[in-house]
């Protein structure tokens, strides 16, 4: 009996193996091996010889060089970080807002849905960079009311002035990044049952209260998902300034740079997750 059970379990595991095998092979080929190899390269001086590549071990030299040797890394990374810190909340709030709007019942909402999904097709492309270069990224009213100048006065010489202005100049672009996020929020909004809204209404809750007490808590997992998605998307966007530093020139140096970059992303994401979980717990316990 027990032998039969054991056999059944092994056969079930074997069946599962058929399903996971492709991904596991892919992981080894396209993730584990390149990761390990790039770590290896980051510790070596790689020289390209006509016969192939030559590796000379040199320890953490590249890492110390990037982190302490010059300020180039920080000069590129810090403004980018500041921009992300400004952009991510804007994207999240905007897409949540739009998703709630699109979820209302009104004639013509299908047309608007189509419009708001357009960015999914556009954002990932080269076209977007074209638009930025054309100066289509600015909002007309910012210039009309010279909001930028006020902001510069307000922020003074602080290191935040430039990133804030950069984000404002590309504000439309920031909104354009919200395609997938709107989609996720829309899908998430569908998971809240109608009955909880009805009972809140019968209890005489105002829509404002309904939003804070029902919609927002129920949406919190989606907000976390969107936070992670947005941050990952921003960090892996091929045209961001830090990634531009990573090119095919010096193999060892670039591998070290890429690894540092990765660690920074991982840290940033875990900070976000911790903050979010803590906020969520506080909101729950209240």
């Amino acid at each position: 009996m027990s032998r039969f059970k054991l056999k059944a379990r092994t056969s079930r595991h074997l069946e599962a193996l058929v399903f996971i095998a492709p991904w596991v092979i892919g992981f080894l080929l396209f993730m584990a091996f390149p990761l390990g190899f790039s770590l290896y390269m980051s510790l070596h001086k790689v020289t390209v010889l006509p016969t192939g590549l030559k590796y000379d071990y040199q320890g953490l030299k590249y890492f110390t060089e990037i982190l302490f040797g010059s300020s180039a890394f920080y000069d590129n990374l810090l403004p980018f970080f500041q921009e992300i810190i400004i952009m991510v909340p804007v994207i999240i709030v905007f897409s949540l807002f739009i998703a709630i709007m699109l979820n209302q019942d009104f004639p013509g909402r299908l047309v608007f849905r189509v419009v708001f999904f357009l960015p999914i097709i556009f954002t990932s492309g080269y076209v977007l960079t074209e638009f930025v270069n054309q100066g289509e990224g600015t909002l007309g009213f910012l210039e009309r009311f010279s909001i930028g100048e006020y902001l510069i006065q307000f922020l003074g010489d602080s290191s935040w002035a430039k990133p804030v202005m950069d984000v404002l100049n590309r504000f439309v672009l920031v909104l354009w990044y919200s395609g997938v996020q709107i989609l996720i929020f829309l899908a998430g909004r569908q998971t809240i049952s109608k009955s909880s809204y009805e009972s809140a209404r019968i209890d005489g809750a105002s829509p404002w209260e309904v939003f804070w007490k029902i919609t927002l808590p129920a949406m919190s997992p989606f907000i976390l998902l969107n936070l992670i998605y947005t941050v990952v998307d921003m960090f892996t966007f091929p045209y961001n300034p830090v990634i531009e530093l990573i090119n095919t020139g010096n193999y060892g140096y670039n591998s070290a740079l890429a690894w540092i970059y990765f660690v920074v992303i991982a840290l940033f994401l875990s900070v976000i997750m911790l903050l979010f979980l803590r906020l969520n717990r506080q909101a729950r316990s209240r």
Partner: protein
Amino acid sequence: MGKINIAKFKAPPLKKRIMQNGLQTFRYAILGREVNRGLLFKIFIYWILIVTSYIYLNPILKMLVKMVMNEKDLNDPTVTWIPHEIYLGHLKTAWAALQYLESLFVSIGISTIVAVFHVISCGLMGYALARMQFPFKKLLTFLLIMTFIIPPQVIILPMIIMYTKLGLQGNLFSLILPSLFGFGIKGALFVIIFRQFYTTQPKELEEAAKIDGASSFKFYWKVMFPLAKPAILVVSLFSFVWTWNDTYYPRMFLGQSPLVPLATQMSRVDASITSMIGNEETALVLVEAIKMSASFLALLPPLLIFFFAQRYFVESVERTGLVE
């Protein structure tokens, strides 16, 4: 919605009541019985949505208009939206510069194959993670999430070296190969979408299959996979469009090879257009118009697909249960 009027038993005089009722209907019409039902709220929604849609559509409309303006209109500051005539010369130039038919063929081929591979391989992994028991399941889930957040830049150099060793560097096949195993552009995200979908399906399905004695592989293809239409649609559309638009991997893997996807060809076109026009005074405006035409040509196929698929697409996203 019939609300119980508790104050009813202390009925006010009839005339006053009628007046009150009238006032209330009026108020309901404007403000709504609940805030989100009234006229004011509707106007507010429309206003917000129209303004934001304008922001969204503005660059696209500009693109469409600039594309068909002739040289005179482009240099005329009074012409902003309506050109005097529809001029197709820029489109022709862009068509030639993009080597449109070849690039289009490459793009369609690669994006379709990648989308199909992604649906198959990510579907298998997603199903296993959602429904099957196997050792190291937690570890694999963790690795999947790691895969999602690892920037492609960390692994790009070793992959180039690996492809060079395999003789695939510069070959279009190098763009397809990772998707066969559920990797490539945002592969991890697709696995997660499938996983989410399969977790929402009723458990009874598998139990019935077990009694029938079907193997899980056969059961997956015959029952679960056909059920997953919403997830398949979402994943294939995302995969198709993202592969279509990607210029990073082609730039890294294909280098200077002559046959590249449209988006990559477009980023190359910059230089070639400038050399085609020469250094005339008006060249800059013309280059812009030609670039707009090129963008339009490069985006046209995914746009068409999107317009046909969007109705099912929205529905499907809602039904995938993206996260629960």
